């Protein structure tokens, strides 16, 4: 707590007008949050009220503090005034710089407070939402609820990063000019944020009733299916199993998202455009993640243990020849899959 106290203390002893501007900023952010949340019927508005109350109380306290500090400050400068203008200016500059830094540090903590309502969940809620993400709903006549919450999606994305890292390591993926870690994080967060904002943009064009927060939550929970499928198929190398899971588990989670989007969109063309794009992106992403970091090891295994090559022949000559060939074909496949995914994501 010692670290939080220091910047806060610095900001408190700051003068009035600066603080007022800062305060308005925070309030503005708060009201924006409430606006976003108002569309959502499951938001915890009581939490925000508490936050605002807390903020106001703190404001009063700070005003009192600031008045006391200014008095002391005046005495201090008055005494120094005998020694000339220079020291006063230097002190003033240092004071300004310190205040700016302190308010910046404090705004970081204030931002955490702004984000906090999105993490206001219970374990049971997260569990039920994870299960619900695999159960498509039938009723599309009235808008379905989407909980605006970010804990579940964020944790699912981190889980996906870990699973992807595991897949990359077991398949001996080599990435030039980059680390596996960075690639995994970039892929997962890029997909989550990129596709969410793209679909949100499409939803705006198609006049669908959805906010960015809800879109992030919807797509984030949709990644639960991906996590299950990838975790199983990175460890059990079986093509038929992957396709079965891809259709069943991936399909169910996609269907859920599509059903929710359909219930919030009006008009068949808009529904088709929005849901077709989302379904295609979501399913192809799973396909890409599986084959991009799995095909390499499969290709090598096929050449080494393929039934049509007699074991006697391949021992001295074929392995050095076959290995680069397999790697090349796998690399080509990998590159094609990546290019397809990139074009799909960017469109």
């Amino acid at each position, binding site marked *: 707590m010692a*670290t939080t106290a220091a910047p806060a203390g610095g900001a408190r002893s700051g003068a009035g007008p600066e603080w007022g501007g800062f305060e308005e900023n925070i309030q503005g952010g708060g009201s924006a949050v409430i606006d976003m949340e108002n569309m959502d019927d499951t938001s915890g508005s009581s939490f925000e009220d508490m936050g605002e109350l807390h903020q106001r109380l703190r404001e009063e306290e700070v005003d009192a503090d600031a008045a006391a500090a200014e008095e002391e400050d005046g005495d201090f400068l008055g005494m120094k005034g005998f020694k000339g203008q220079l020291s006063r200016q230097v002190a003033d500059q240092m004071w300004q710089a310190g205040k700016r830094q302190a308010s910046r540090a404090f705004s970081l903590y204030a931002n955490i407070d702004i984000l906090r309502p*999105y993490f206001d969940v219970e374990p049971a809620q997260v569990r039920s939402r994870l299960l619900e993400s695999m159960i498509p709903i039938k009723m599309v006549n009235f808008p379905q609820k989407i909980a605006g919450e970010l804990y579940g999606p*964020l944790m699912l994305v981190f889980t996906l990063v870990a699973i992807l890292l595991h897949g990359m390591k077991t398949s001996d993926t080599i990435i030039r000019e980059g680390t596996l870690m960075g690639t995994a994080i970039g892929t997962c967060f890029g997909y989550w944020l990129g596709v969410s904002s793209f679909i949100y943009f499409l939803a705006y064009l198609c006049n669908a009733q959805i906010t960015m927060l809800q879109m992030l939550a919807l797509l984030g929970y949709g990644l639960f299916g991906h996590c299950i499928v990838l975790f199983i198929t990175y460890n059990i190398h079986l093509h038929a199993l992957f396709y079965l899971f891809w259709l069943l588990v991936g399909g169910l989670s996609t269907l859920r998202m599509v059903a929710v989007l359909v219930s919030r969109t009006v008009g068949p063309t808009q529904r088709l455009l929005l849901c077709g794009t989302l379904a295609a992106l979501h399913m192809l992403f799973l396909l890409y993640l599986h084959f991009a970091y799995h095909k390499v090891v499969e290709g090598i295994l096929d050449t080494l243990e393929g039934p049509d090559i007699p074991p006697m022949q391949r021992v001295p000559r074929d392995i050095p020849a076959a290995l680069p060939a397999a790697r090349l074909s796998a690399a080509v496949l990998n590159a094609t899959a990546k290019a397809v995914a990139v074009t799909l994501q960017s469109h």
Partner: protein
Amino acid sequence: MRSHIREFDSSTLNESVQNTIMRDLKAVGKKFMHVLYPRKSNTLLRDWDLWGPLILCVTLALMLQRSSIDSEKDGGPQFAEVFVIVWFGAVTITLNSKLLGGNISFFQSLCVLGYCILPLTVAMLVCRLVLLAEPGPINFMVRLFVVIVMFAWSIVASTAFLADSQPPNRKALAIYPVFLFYFVISWMILTFTPQ
């Protein structure tokens, strides 16, 4: 005058460098003991430091480094990768616990998470020793056993320190990322093979 000197002595300005270093090392060692025997204690939380986590993280990263510098096979864990995973992971867990409403400061949480890597660093040491022996399924089973035990130890130790700072109904949510974090590190340790 005498009282003045005594006052001067009690400050750390006047003492020899050796004393200062020994005192800090003792503090770090005491915290290591707290991790090895996790009990309900606030030592790790009250006076946090980042020396222990730094030492552990660097040791782990150095041991996970492969000896060969082969550009073809650079899929193995590298120093920077381990370093980034440890610090990025710890910062993420800390932010998450703050967002969930935990009353723990940023550096306290970093300190606890960093010190609780100690069992995994020990596991890495054991694994490197075991890997000197003949490779085979028994070798792997031994490493698997050691890593699982040390993984559980890390989880137990970190939750013993961190769980109290969370609201009681949300402990599971705060512990899941901790679990993921240590799981990734222990999995890296288990799959490590020197070239």
